[in-house]
């Protein structure tokens, strides 16, 4: 009797499992292509985490005026090369409190004559969220003075420097936030330009083939045979030094995408070549569709996901190139703020040893580049959800 009941229970459980499996399968059958891609992308944990990190970075870049506690150009002459402010959560008596900082006192080391900063544990400033601070114009449109965090003290009295201050006493964290805007957007703009060039030229090459294909392929091979950084250096050195920041910015992106399109064009071409032989293309042609319609309605949607994946993988290259050029002094120049410009501070080894925190923009670059690589990898795996 007991055995039979167990059997029945097992059968029921089995049936439920079977049903759940069927439902699962059904879900897969009716899911759209993008849904399938999302499910596959979700499995790549590193890519998922990286996507979160990138989202955070771009939020900071978009709202940098709000996130940064200070104006990036504002200098605190009394806090030259001030090390990162330590944030405490335990006070002198060992009690836990809302995060706060102690007042900093400047002293001169009697032996080396270097300025050292010590904490005055009698005066504490709690960290406040949404404090009023220096006024700014968000995106140059809205006049505001609230900042994400800060302390209730005038900046002359005490400043909060999450990443320390630079040689001129400017808050490095604010500068990194503002730098994110230029450094992260230059990758997007550059990739967008390369995308246009890559899709047009790669598309022509792959769809029509023949002589045009041959010419474009030789051109790509030629461009790729020139070492990119020396070429970029040569081209950006030619940008006039008196250009305004915005124009230099676009000049640099155009220079970067002059080489960047070649990789995308290759991907587009190979996809066009394999897809134009497919039955559905033939069917569309027989049904009397125009070339333009075949390309935009049938071909482009089928390889769009691959394009997005290779786009994501070429953004970090752009970010790095901008950083490298600005670091050398050939790209953007101060007063423009990008991560590469900030890294120019590190060129002097002596000051780097004195103030290692000026190296933090390098870590911002590395994290952004790694995150883009992981996301791109995940997207590439997910790009073809029907495989396997």
């Amino acid at each position, binding site marked *: 009797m007991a055995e039979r009941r167990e059997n029945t229970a097992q059968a029921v459980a089995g049936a439920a499992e079977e049903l759940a499996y069927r439902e699962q399968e059904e879900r897969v059958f009716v899911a759209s292509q993008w849904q399938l891609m999302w499910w596959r992308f979700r499995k790549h944990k*590193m890519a998922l985490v990286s996507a979160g990190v990138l989202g955070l970075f771009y939020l900071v870049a978009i709202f940098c005026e709000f996130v940064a506690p200070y104006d990036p150009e504002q200098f605190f002459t009394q806090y030259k090369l001030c090390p990162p402010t330590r944030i405490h959560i335990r006070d002198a008596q060992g009690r836990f409190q809302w995060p706060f900082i102690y007042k900093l006192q400047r002293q001169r080391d009697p032996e080396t004559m270097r300025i050292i900063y010590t904490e005055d544990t009698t005066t504490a400033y709690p960290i406040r969220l949404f404090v009023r601070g220096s006024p700014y114009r968000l995106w140059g449109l809205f006049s505001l003075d609230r900042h994400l965090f800060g302390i209730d003290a005038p900046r002359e009295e005490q400043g909060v420097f999450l990443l320390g201050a630079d040689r001129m006493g400017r808050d490095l964290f604010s500068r990194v936030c503002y730098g994110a805007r230029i450094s992260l957007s230059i990758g997007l703009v550059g990739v967008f330009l390369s995308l246009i060039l890559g899709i047009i030229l790669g598309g022509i090459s792959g769809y029509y083939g023949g002589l045009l294909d041959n010419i474009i392929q030789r051109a790509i*091979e*030629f461009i*790729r*045979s*020139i*070492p*990119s*950084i*020396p*070429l970029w*250096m*040569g*081209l950006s*050195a*030619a940008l006039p030094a008196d250009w305004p920041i915005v124009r230099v910015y676009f000049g640099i992106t155009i220079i970067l995408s002059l080489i960047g399109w070649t990789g995308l064009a290759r991907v587009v071409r190979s996809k066009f070549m394999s897809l134009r032989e497919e039955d559905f293309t033939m069917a569309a042609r027989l049904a009397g569709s125009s070339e333009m319609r075949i390309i935009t309605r049938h071909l482009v949607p089928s390889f769009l996901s691959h394009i997005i994946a290779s786009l994501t993988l070429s953004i*970090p290259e752009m970010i*790095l190139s901008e*950083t*490298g050029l600005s*670091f*050398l*002094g*050939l790209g953007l120049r101060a007063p423009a703020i990008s991560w590469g410009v900030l*890294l120019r501070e*590190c*060129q002097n*080894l002596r000051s*780097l*040893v004195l103030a*290692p925190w000026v*190296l933090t923009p*390098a870590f911002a*670059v*590395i994290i952004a*580049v*790694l995150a883009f*690589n*992981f996301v791109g990898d995940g997207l590439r795996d997910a790009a073809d959800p029907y495989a396997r």
Partner: protein
Amino acid sequence: MLRYVFRRILYMIPTLILISMVSFAIIQLPPGDYLTSYAAQLRTTGDTIDEAELAALRERYGLGQPIYVQYLKWVKGILLHNDWGQSMEWQRPVKELIFERIALTVVLSFSTMIFSWVVGISVGIYSATHQYSFMDYLMTLVSFIGVGTPGFLLALIVMYAAMAYFGLNVGGLFSEQYMLAPWSWAKFVDMLKHIWIPILVLAVSSTAGIIRTTRANLLDELNKPYVVTARAKGLKETKLVLKYPTRVALIPFFSTVGWALASLVSGSTLVAVVLSLQTEGPMLLRALMSQDMYLAGSFILLLSTLTVIGTLISDVILAWVDPRIRLEA
């Protein structure tokens, strides 16, 4: 085979002509010409200007004439007289400055490439044959991070760490006393003592890429029937893996030697500036900054030519390793 090589060399000629045009265009990009600034420089230092000499130079470079005449004169000078123009900043012919730097760049890039191949391929083979083992996971993680870490930032971090923790300055390729000394055995040994740090820094990202590609390719090959057959017939595992699937897995590398070289050269430019190596990087940067355009243009021309030759070599090796290619051609 010979016919194939010959044809590839013929293909090279239009590429080289295009490269020389691009380099010349870069020379021409900044406003003004070399002689005007040269004369201005002489005037500021108070030197007298020899008008006859200026006229001779103007005739030599075809200044003031149409652009294609200038270009042809420039190319003719290089091809027939090995005359690469005059460096304005150094007041010396470009050819005296450039070749040692280029040679050191080639030495550095080649050693880096060989190092990253040896390390990358052996680690890749290990990872593939020990798939999902602890070491495999570790190596995969390391190579993921390595691919994303840019060389010049790594160089900065290494410089800082060496200075802060060991009090060492790891920049440069030579010790101070050998910096300007002529080449000797002692200078060579001194270089060996310095060159390994830039090699390591440069090799990180390329090695990581090689590990990943080798692992993926070899994993594809290892499941193929011929490998199973060979194993069933009792071939020793080492010989089995190394002799057949590895050879197939390595083919993509030969086809990308040329580009690998190009990206190494361009990556090394930035690293060389950070580590102040005596390769082309810092000199090219200075030449560009001070608009010493004949020097900069010659650098770009020579570096591009080198990579084109590198691509040629890689194609020839590829045809030699993979008979399918040379039979098709």
